[in-house]
Every structure is written in structure tokens, then in C-alpha cells.
């Protein structure tokens, strides 16, 4: 965790654009709380003076104090309203800024970091937690301290001793005691958070594995584990509750002691004539008014703990390096798709095994290339390098004569239409999802692309056609349909290089064959790279790359590879590829593994 000072500076830096509103909020709040304290004091002075006047049979100007009381009541209630409006508006602005800041922060990070849906959900909650920094931490502490000090200064005018007593007792009640509680509560607090996370993980396991646990007769021990974690969690909360109970009892004791102490000092002063007797009432009530300022503080300590934990998690993203570095002086975008791999190697983390190594090959513009290989051979990494989603660690890729790192990643991506192995559909309409490919495309372009991908008819059959919502709250599409939307989306880009990662997964064989013949025609004059398991589809390619164990083992056409490449022959092991369920028109549904993005979402 960063130091408190560093966190504070970080918060202030993020809040700088809204500093004016925040300062105004604090100022109004100080006026409001002071008005309340003054209201009590003036009311006390008023009735004591009225009583004194009554006893003395003298008259008194009661118009001024009555007007002051009215005025303070209005300032207090109106000020509170204004203050809440100002601070909430500023806080919501800050949250907007934080969301955009965070999005910009992670946008260039590597994909591997971003697979964890739980992590993302927590980040979202963390950003929302940071509204506490101002509303529950900085503002109450500033306001509380300012009002306390102001009240103590007023007391000083009457009696320095009374001011000292109050400063000491109220300071301990408002700052030292909550601070101590916070420190003591850190360990049980962390334990409670940890236990609840463990319980949550155990509950996810238990709920999702309910069927298997039932069959294996293993429900009871697992249920007891969750139950035990629940009781542990409550035990930690009990410790916290004891602490907070002690703390609020302590605050009650100290603030009321300040009251008794003040009385003790005032009585002799009145007797000695150093103080007007009627001043006893306003001073006593001023001390009571300070309780409100003190009460603002303990919550701040709690907020501090939560805000710092959230901040630590968010700031961790600042330290992550982007997946690929952008050039300081980018070259103009490449003019053609002549690409050369020269002893290229990469791995995702320094201590990982190589994901790809010693790959040397040339891709000529307009060439159609298939990439095959067993799972984990490096096919997707090969594609990620071209898309600048992964950084080259060894060797070099030259595109139109220049190394990839000379170009802006956006310039390269503008020339690539890509269909990933796991197509991500946003939770919006089919239309919006297609337009991700080219936001300014016309409806005709969009339908034409959907036609080539063989998804137009499917879309028209949806309840609201292109305007049907997809995803969690919308329609559930089959794996094959999602894939074809991904293909249409990519085709809409109309780029010279097209990369398809497993375009036929989840499609029944007739659909796959029809799709392929349309794609082949449509992409005839472009550079095309197809990564596929489906060896029936790759026969026709003039060039097939065979990857295995992170290396390029063969490069040639079907006939050559069948003769010379053992891996290729093994992949062709046709017998095992016979599938019984491919005839179903909807074979894709539920049978391709859900994308991790979607499956993680379930717990989000």
C-alpha cells in the first residue's frame, strides 16, 4: 500500500478539476455547522437573559436575539441543503472523471491482464467507493476541525481554562479515540474481508457444483465449511462491533465530561465576578453544540480504511506496463501488406514459457494462408503479434519494410479486420454490435456484410431484427450466430488484411461450407489469414502453416504437408474428428465453450 501522504496527493490531483466546488462545499458546510452551534448558544443566552430580566423586573431588547435565532435557523437548514447539493454534484463529477481516467489507464494494457471479470467488477465498486474520500473523509474532517477550533476560540474569549479543557477532551473524542479504534480494527477488519471473500468463493463452488456434490454425497462437509466461514465472519464482525461500541461509549463519555469540566471551571469564575452569570448557559450549550462537530469524525476513519484499500487496488493499474509501447515518432501507415517474420519469439511474462519462438516467414500481399496446429501451439499468439496485442521479445516483424514498433498500433489495426476466437458482443443491439466494425457505415453496408457472413436471415428472424438486444438482458444467441456476427462486424471494416481465428467453430458443416465459399469469393483480392481446427476447410489453401510447441514446423500446401509433415498427418487423424452432432441446425448452441468473458460475468 502507498503511504497516506502519497494517497492524499493522488486524491487531490484527481480532484483538482473540481477543487472549486469542493472548497465551496466545505465553506458552506462550515457555515452550517457553526450556525447550529451559534443557534444553541444564542438560545441559551436568550432564555438566561430573559429570566434574569424577569427576576430584576427590568425590560430587555428581545427583538435582536429573536431575529438572530430566526436567522440562524434559516441559515442552518438552508445551508445544509445547499451544501449537500454542491458536494454531491462535485462528487458525481469526480466519479465521472475517475471512470474515464481508469478506462484510459487500462485501455493500452495487455489482454491477459483483463480476463478476470471479478477483478473488473471490483474495480467498478472501488471507483464508486472513492466518493467517500470527499463526502465522508475530507469534508467532515475539515468541517469538524474548523468548527471545533472556532468554538474553542470563542470559549477562549471567556475563559482560557475552559478552552483548554474542551480542546483536550473533544480532541481526544474526535481524533485520537477514532484513530485508535481504526488502528485496532484494522486486523479484524482485514480478517472479516478475507473470510467473506473465502466464504463467497466456497459458496460459488458449492452452488455451481451442487449436482456433482449431490451425486458424490459430498454436500454436507462443504455446506459445513461455508457455515463455519459464515460463523467466522460473524466472529470477526463481533470484534469490530465491540471496538466500535467501546469507541462510541468513549466519545459519549469524553464529550459529556467536557460538559462537566466546563461547569466546574465556570462556577468559580461567576462567583469571582470574572464572568457574567448568564454566560453560563450559552457556554454550556456551545459545548453541547461541539458534539455535532465531533460526531462527524469517527465515520471519517472508517471511510479512510475503505478508500485506501480501493485506492491501492486502482493505483496498482498505474504500475502496469502497456502491452506494446507506442513509438515516439510514428512512421506513416504502411502502404501494403508485405509482412516478414524474422526469428520472431514472444512470451507473455518474463518467467512464462515461450508462446512462440524462431518463426521466420514472409507473407505476400493478397496471399491466403491457413494456420493449423494442436491447442496451445501458438496460433493465437501469432495473430496477437500482428494485431499488436502482444509485444515481440525476440527477432523482428517487418511490415512494408519497417518494424512493427515503428507504427502506431492504431494505424496497423486500421488495416486489419479481425475475428477473434472468442467474439465479444456488447450488451446492446445487434446493429450497434455490427457497427463496432465501422461506426459510420450505412445500413446497406451493414446488411451487405451480414449477408456475406450468412447472418442476415438469422438477424431478420430475431424479434426486433437488427434492433434486438443481445447479451445478459437480451436474447441469447447461439455460439455459431455470435461468431457470424463477429465475422460480419469485421467484414464491415473493408480492410486489406483479414484475420479469422477459428471462424467455423460452432457451425454445422453445411453452414460452414456455405460461409466459406462466400468468404473466399468476397476476400479473393485481400490478404487472408485463417486459424482453424477444421482441417476440412484448410485443404484448399495454397499455403498452410503448421505450428506445434510454439514453433513453425511446416509451411506448404496440403499435398506437400501430407507427404512431409508428421504433425499435419496427425492433425488429419480424421477418424476422431467424426462428429455425430454436426447435423443439428443449431449444433453451436451451448456446445462451444462459453467465452471466458461471458462465463466470468455470471459472478460479476
Amino acid at each position: 500500500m502507498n503511504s497516506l501522504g502519497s494517497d492524499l496527493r493522488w486524491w487531490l490531483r484527481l480532484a483538482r478539476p473540481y477543487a472549486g466546488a469542493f472548497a465551496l462545499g466545505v465553506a458552506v458546510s462550515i457555515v452550517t455547522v457553526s450556525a447550529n452551534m451559534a443557534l444553541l448558544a444564542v438560545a441559551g443566552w436568550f432564555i438566561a437573559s430573559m429570566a434574569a430580566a424577569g427576576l430584576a423586573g427590568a425590560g430587555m431588547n428581545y427583538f435582536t436575539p429573536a431575529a438572530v435565532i430566526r436567522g440562524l435557523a434559516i441559515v442552518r437548514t438552508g445551508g445544509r441543503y445547499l451544501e449537500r447539493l454542491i458536494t454531491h454534484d462535485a462528487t458525481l463529477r469526480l466519479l465521472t472523471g475517475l471512470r474515464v481516467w481508469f478506462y484510459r489507464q487500462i485501455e493500452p494494457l495487455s489482454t491477459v491482464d483483463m480476463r478476470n471479470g471479478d477483478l473488473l467488477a471490483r474495480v467498478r465498486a472501488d471507483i464508486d467507493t472513492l466518493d467517500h474520500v470527499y463526502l465522508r473523509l475530507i469534508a467532515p474532517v475539515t468541517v469538524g476541525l474548523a468548527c471545533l477550533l472556532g468554538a474553542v476560540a470563542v470559549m477562549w474569549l471567556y475563559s482560557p481554562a475552559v478552552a483548554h479543557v474542551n480542546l483536550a477532551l473533544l480532541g481526544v473524542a474526535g481524533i485520537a479515540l477514532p484513530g485508535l479504534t481504526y488502528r485496532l480494527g484494522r486486523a479484524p477488519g482485514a480478517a472479516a474481508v478475507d473470510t467473506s471473500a473465502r466464504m463467497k468463493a466456497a459458496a460459488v463452488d458449492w452452488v455451481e457444483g451442487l449436482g456433482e456434490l449431490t451425486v458424490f454425497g459430498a454436500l454436507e462437509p462443504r455446506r459445513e465449511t461455508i457455515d463455519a466461514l459464515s460463523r467466522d465472519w460473524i466472529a470477526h464482525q463481533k470484534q469490530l462491533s465491540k471496538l466500535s461500541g467501546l469507541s462510541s461509549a468513549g466519545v459519549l463519555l469524553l464529550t459529556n465530561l467536557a460538559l462537566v469540566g466546563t461547569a466546574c471551571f465556570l462556577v468559580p469564575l461567576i462567583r469571582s465576578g470574572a464572568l457574567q452569570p448568564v454566560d453560563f448557559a450559552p457556554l454550556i450549550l456551545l459545548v453541547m453544540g461541539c458534539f455535532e462537530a465531533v460526531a462527524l469524525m469517527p465515520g471519517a476513519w472508517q471511510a479512510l480504511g475503505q478508500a485506501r484499500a480501493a485506492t491501492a487496488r486502482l493505483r496498482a493499474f498505474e504500475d502496469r506496463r502497456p502491452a506494446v509501447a507506442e513509438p515516439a515518432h510514428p512512421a506513416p501507415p504502411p502502404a501494403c501488406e508485405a509482412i516478414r517474420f524474422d526469428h520472431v519469439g514472444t512470451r507473455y511474462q518474463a518467467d512464462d514459457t515461450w508462446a512462440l519462438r524462431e518463426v521466420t516467414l514472409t507473407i505476400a500481399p493478397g496471399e491466403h494462408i491457413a494456420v493449423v496446429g494442436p491447442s496451445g501451439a501458438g496460433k493465437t499468439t501469432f495473430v496477437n503479434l500482428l494485431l499488436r496485442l502482444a509485444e515481440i521479445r525476440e527477432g523482428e516483424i517487418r511490415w512494408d519494410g519497417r518494424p512493427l514498433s515503428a507504427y502506431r498500433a492504431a494505424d496497423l489495426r486500421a488495416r486489419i479486420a479481425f475475428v477473434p476466437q472468442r467474439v465479444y458482443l456488447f450488451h446492446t443491439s445487434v446493429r450497434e454490435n455490427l457497427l463496432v466494425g465501422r461506426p459510420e457505415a450505412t445500413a446497406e453496408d451493414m446488411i451487405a456484410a451480414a449477408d456475406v457472413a450468412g447472418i442476415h436471415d438469422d438477424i431478420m428472424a430475431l424479434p426486433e431484427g437488427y434492433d434486438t438486444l443481445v447479451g445478459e438482458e437480451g436474447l441469447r444467441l447461439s455460439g455459431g450466430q455470435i461468431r457470424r456476427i463477429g465475422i460480419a462486424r469485421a467484414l464491415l471494416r473493408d480492410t486489406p488484411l483479414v484475420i479469422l481465428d477459428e471462424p467455423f467453430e460452432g457451425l454445422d458443416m453445411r453452414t460452414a461450407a456455405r460461409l466459406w465459399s462466400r468468404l473466399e469469393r468476397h476476400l479473393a483480392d485481400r490478404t487472408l489469414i485463417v486459424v482453424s481446427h477444421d482441417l476440412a476447410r484448410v485443404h484448399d489453401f495454397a499455403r498452410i502453416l503448421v505450428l506445434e510447441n510454439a514453433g513453425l514446423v511446416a509451411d506448404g500446401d496440403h499435398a506437400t504437408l501430407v507427404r512431409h509433415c508428421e504433425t499435419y498427418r496427425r492433425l488429419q487423424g480424421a477418424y476422431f474428428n467424426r462428429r455425430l452432432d454436426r447435423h443439428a441446425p443449431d449444433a453451436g448452441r451451448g456446445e462451444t465453450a462459453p467465452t471466458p468473458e461471458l462465463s466470468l460475468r455470471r459472478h460479476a
Partner: protein
Amino acid sequence: MPQPNTSAAWLKRESDIVRRPVSRAIAIESAGGVLMIAQAAVLAHVADAAIFDGAALTAILPWLVGLFLLIGLRAILSYAGEQARFAAGATIKAVVRERLLRTIERLGVVWQRRMPSGDLVETLTEGVEKLEAYYGRYLSQTAVAVLLPLAILAVIMPIDWLSGLVLLATAPLIPVFMIFIGKGAEKLNQRQWRRMGVLSGHFLDALQGLTTLRIFNLGAREARLIERLSDDYRRSTMAVLRVAFLSSLVLEFLATVSIALVAVLIGFRLMWGQIGFEAGFLVLLLAPEFYLPLRNMGSVYHARMEAIAAAERMVEIFDAPALEWPGTRRDVFADAPPRVTLAALGYTYPGSDRPALAGIDLDIAAGETIAVVGASGAGKSTLALALLGLIRADRGDLRINGAPLETIAIERWREQLAWVPQQPRLFHGSVRDNLLLGDAAANDDALWSALDRAQARDFVAALPRGLDTPVGERGQRLSGGQVQRLAIARAFVRNARFVVVDEISAHLDAENERRLVTALEALAQGRGMLLIAHRLASVAHADRIVVMDGGRIVEQGRHEQLLAHGGVYARLASDSRTIAA
């Protein structure tokens, strides 16, 4: 259930469990209130003595000592009250959580699969936490909000009936206003929550689809979109807050004005000598305390709303029909594979109008391997669930060694069973923990031998810590084929007499596929097996192939017979042949 099972009624009914801590909390807080009144009275006396009697410190000292004792007592009560409130919340949380766990267990997988598991887990954890505020705060605070103002009135009325009248007249306005305004704000609030949901949903969506946005060069556009949505949200939230804050403005104003009115009324009567200073000062001290519990009701009411929302899902769980197996017979099993007979077995999923199983007749001989094929939706998985006792057929008969499953103690049947689902769950823990689910007493040798027969030895041995490698949610990533082979190994560990397998249908490369088929073949030795098959290679080894369509068996026989028959199966097989050609 005797009462309508709304969540509010449920919350109220459950309060029986915590009657004692809640009553204790009310008693303690009321006592604290009485002490607070006493403290105000002593303070008023001290003030009177100090201002108008010119009393010496020594004369006042006994009163100050009394004040000190009262404060100490109040601090103790404040601590005790917090403990009582916590006890109420803690008791209810522990009880409800355990009951939820036991209930969910009895509802079965069909029910569980229809419920998003994220929701269930949320209910078990944070949902139950939300109950705490209802039992820990709402119940006691509402009682105190009635008792304490009444007690204060009881003190004020005899000494100054006019101030008492002002308080009495304004007090009911506060809860009335609060409910009136609160209801409207609640509606606005809910709309706002939905907007918040849209906004944070969009944000999460953008984060999860980040790679897509990046490869389509839409990063900058998305940042602007997030900013715009977030700003829209701010504007609409502020519109709601302006109303919500206005309502609290009215309430505060009401309370403040009444107190000011009391102060002014007291002031004039003091001047006219109609009331003593001590009495007047006491009333002034007590007036804010009179409104305090009423003003706190706002946040307490909010806690109640949250608890009601959280309880909705719980009531739904408690009201769902459980899957019960009444049988008790334990004598139907011999040390051999069982014979399983299905006669006219039918099952319709709740809420569906089409039967998933529409009369299945199937006799599985002891040790026989049956391969089930058919399009998705044909009823294959439902058949598997029925054999596993995870659903109870609504029509027909399922007999194990001649005895209806309803008469058998279900756990005895399950002891005979192992299950290899299509997407087996890897539980949080090590590879070993996951295998031991089959048989908790198995030693490492047995585990390795099972892994060997399941064709899983190589990749487990290659894992960084072998059997101790953590798997599951945050553990090692394994491929679908590997996970299924681990599940097969688990079935070997169990040494079950009957195995239900739902073969993985996702694409596997040739090597993985060969190993899977080999492992299944080994698993079938010496056991009965029902295999939901997706590959010709797996089917080829079955003793019998059953073809399902629309919840019925439409064909059965051996591979060659079915091919010769030229029906659905022949069509399936020829389709797959053309793929492979």
C-alpha cells in the same frame, strides 16, 4: 404458510428468533434515554444554581459528581446496547444463512440451473448481511422512536404544558411527512438505481470488451461515451437529490422552528415570571432530544427497505418446492453392476409445456454400455439427470435391480454412481482434493493409478506441483479435455458400479480426442455406463446405441445394425463421414 409470504411479513415473522436480544436492546436504549433525561435535569439544576444562586463549587459538587456517575452509566449502557443490537443481527444472519444452505441443497439442480449462480451467492453473502440492519437497528429504533419522545413529553408536560403542547402538535408531522415524501423519493430512487445499473453495466461491458474496442480502434470513442453516460447519470441523480434533499430540508426546518418556538415561548414566560429558569432550561435541553429519534427514522426506514429487497430472493428460495426422495431400502445392491430398468419414463421441466422425456423404455443390463445420441434438446441430458436421481420422473418407472428408485435410500444408490458431466466443475482446491471427492479415503497410489487409466497422468505429472497444484476458479487453467479426463479419473477413484458420462462436445484436437476415447473405454470395463456421445469413435465401443429425438427413443441397436436400418442414425453417421472425408 399461514400468512401471505411477502418479504415484509417474512421479516416480521423471523423476528421471533431474535426476540430476546431485540427486547434487551430496547430496554437498554430506553434506560439510556431515561438517564439522558436525568442528566438534563441535573444540568438544568446546576445552571440554575450557578446563574441565579451564585452557588459555590463546593455546593454544586455533589450534583456534578452525580452528573459524572450518570454519564458513566450512559456510556456503559451505550456499549451494552451496541452489543445487544449486534447479537440480534448476528443470530439472524447465522440462522438464516444455514437455513438457506440447507434449503438450496434440497431444491436440486433443475432449480439451481434456472437461477443465476451469482444471484444465489450474493443472497447467501451480502443479502443476508442486509438483514442485520432490520433486526439490529430497525426493530429497536422504531420502539425507541416512540418510547423516548413519550418519556420526554411525560417530563415536560407537568413542568411546562405549553411547550409540551408545541412538541405534541409537531411530532406527528415528522413521521407523516417522512413517509409521504419518502414514498415519492423511493420511486425516484428506484428509477435512479436502474440508471445506475445501466451506467455501471455499460462500464463493465466496456472493460470486458476492451480487446474488441482496441482492435477496432474505438478506444477514444468509448472513453467519450463513458464520459457522456456518466455525466447524464450525474444530471439525473442531481434531479433526484434536489427533491430528496428538499424533503429533509422541510423536516429539519420543522424541527428547528419548533425548537426555536419553544425557546421563544419559554423566554417570554421567564421574563414575565410565569416559569422558573431551571424548568425552562430543562425544556430547552430536552426539545432537540425529542426530535432526534424521529429524525433518525429516515435512515432506519431505508435499512428496512434494503432488508425487504434482500429478503425477496430468500422468500423465493424458502417457498420453492424441494426435490424429495422418500425411499429407505438399503438392501437392493450386490457387489456387482446394477441392472437399470426404465419403463414409460416421463419428465416435464417446471414451467415447460413440452415433456423432455416422453415415455422412455430402456433396459440396461448389468455392466452394459449404452451410448445415447441425438440432436441437442432430444432429452439426452434429462435422461442422465433422471438416472442420477437429480430429478424425479413424473411418469413411469425407474427400477434399480428391480426395485423402484422411490423405495431406495437415495444415498445408497448414489454410492453406486459416478458422474462425468460435460463441463465438470473443478472445485477450489488441489487436484488431489478434486479426485478425493470420489473417495475421501483413497491414497496417492490409488489416485495416480486412476489418473493413469483416465489418460491424465502425463499432464497432472507435468503440473508445477503435481497432485497439489491448485485448480478451480483461481487455479491452474486446464483445457476442457483435460478437465473431463480429471472427472473420469475421479470416477475411477470412486470405483462406482454405474457411470453416467456426458462426453465433452467442444472441439478437441486429435491427440486429446484419442486419449478421451481410450479413457472412456477403460472406464466402461466392469461397470454399467450411460454415455451421452458426440463422437463416432466413442459410440463404436458401446454395447448398444440409443438414438433419441423429442424425448423418445427412436432407434436402438449396434452401430452396424443401425447403419443398415437407414434411419436417423445412418443419417447422422453419414453426415459426419462427409466432414471427415
